[in-house]
């Protein structure tokens, strides 16, 4: 019947409005729910979500060893040419030539933090760091070499 539908309509509208207003009233009175981070003030104790992706870094051990074999899987996986790997040939004491990375070049200014390089890496050489304060005065500073000078490939990583 028309009138019953009409009244049901109004009842439903009022009910759903009341639910919405109850929610906002809850937030209004419960200030502990506030999610604002007072960023520059709380820099010291700032906690970022685990999944936050800031920049690509290469982890090094205490003995200045990394895990990158120079396979260029990350370079191929990168959708916008952020990574450039320059390889060289190390000569071992036995006179054997071995491929190693000379420079792992990472263009932060091109990176979209898509995480594809990290997923592509077969040896877990690179990770995503949580650092997000990237501003510099010269864009050349955003082109980074990720492997530290004089670093070697970790023993046992092929």
């Amino acid at each position, binding site marked *: 019947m028309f009138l019953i539908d009409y009244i049901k*309509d*109004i009842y439903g509208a009022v009910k759903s*409005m009341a639910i*919405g*207003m109850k*929610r*906002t*009233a809850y*937030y*209004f009175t419960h*200030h502990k*729910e*506030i*999610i*604002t981070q*007072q960023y520059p003030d709380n820099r010291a104790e700032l906690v970022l979500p685990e999944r936050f992706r800031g920049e690509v870094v290469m982890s090094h051990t205490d003995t200045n060893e990394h895990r990158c074999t120079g396979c260029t899987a990350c370079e191929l996986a990168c959708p916008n040419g952020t990574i450039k790997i320059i390889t060289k040939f190390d000569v071992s004491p036995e006179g054997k030539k071995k491929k190693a990375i000379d420079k792992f070049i990472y263009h932060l200014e091109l990176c979209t933090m898509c995480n594809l390089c990290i997923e592509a890496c077969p040896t877990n050489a690179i990770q995503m760091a949580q650092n997000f304060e990237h501003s510099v005065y010269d864009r050349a500073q955003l082109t980074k070499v990720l492997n530290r000078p004089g670093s070697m490939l970790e023993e046992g990583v092929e």
Partner: protein
Amino acid sequence: MWSLSNIAKSIDAWLYEVLPPTVALITEMVIVGLLAITLFALLGLILVIMERKVAAYMQIRLGPNRVGYKGMLQSLADTVKLLMKEGITPAGADKMMFNLAPFIAMITAMLLLAPLGFARDLHIWDLNIGVLYVTAVSSLSVISILMAGWSSNNKYSLLGAMRSGAQIVSYELSAGLAILTVVVLTGSLQMSEIVQSQANGWWLFKGHIPAVIAFVIFIIAVTAETNRAPFDLAEAESELTAGFHTEYSGMKFALFFLAEYINVFIVCAIGATLFLGGWMPLHIGNWKGFNHVMDYVPSSIWFFGKTFFLIFVIMWFRWTFPRLRIDQLLNLEWKYLLPISMFNILLVTLIAIKGWHF
């Protein structure tokens, strides 16, 4: 006893004593005008910061918290910024109408202040057709919006103004009918008499369910009339940039902004006067002690307290509900609010004739 009306009376007596009657009257008018402007400026500052804080807490944010104690001076800083900005008039605009529109918005808001009773026996002008005056003058505000939208020579402004016209004209009806229910119950159009009739209880409680329905309809209709969310189609930041005040900048924009908040204050003050007893303290039946304690609270505090409660409710609406589409907006008015309020006023008339209200 100390009260606002006593101060007003003594100033009035003193002015008539030292000045000839005509000069005294003019002086009083100037004083009242200055007070009204001061009240507007203060209200603008308070309501803007209140709105921003309420919005922030409802959206689980902190809101402004840097300028002054907990950001309480933020709206003052914003005003100073707006004062220093250049007021640009677009090249294709109708210059006179463009510059006149914000002042009409302000003047309309100012005129509405006249019949309000701010405290016991404190009115600017307690005319005997107060309610009619309010409904008549409040519909003038649409002219300023249409003027602003038309003269801006901008498609967004014009669209916003047209929507606003459709909206205000339709919602005026149900707001008027909701106001009429109280007029029917009281039998008077005078604001002071309406307040006086609520000495033994507010109309919201005395008028049974029809009064409650009328109150709800009144709140919805005035939210639409003041162009506030969820009925802010005329401004609609996300689709019309800012609607009728897209082209305004600097102090002219500030006047529109201020007029919106002043209008909210005034409609809430009218709602408080009609349904919540204006400056009347809260009395519950025969609780002598309770009623006596309530009488000690100054009447102006009761008035402003009720008004700010209603303003909070309207802000609560704004930060809870999404914006309506224009067809939904008109549906709500013509298919729901108007028939309900018409039926409601019949019920109220029956109650008033039979004397069933308390």
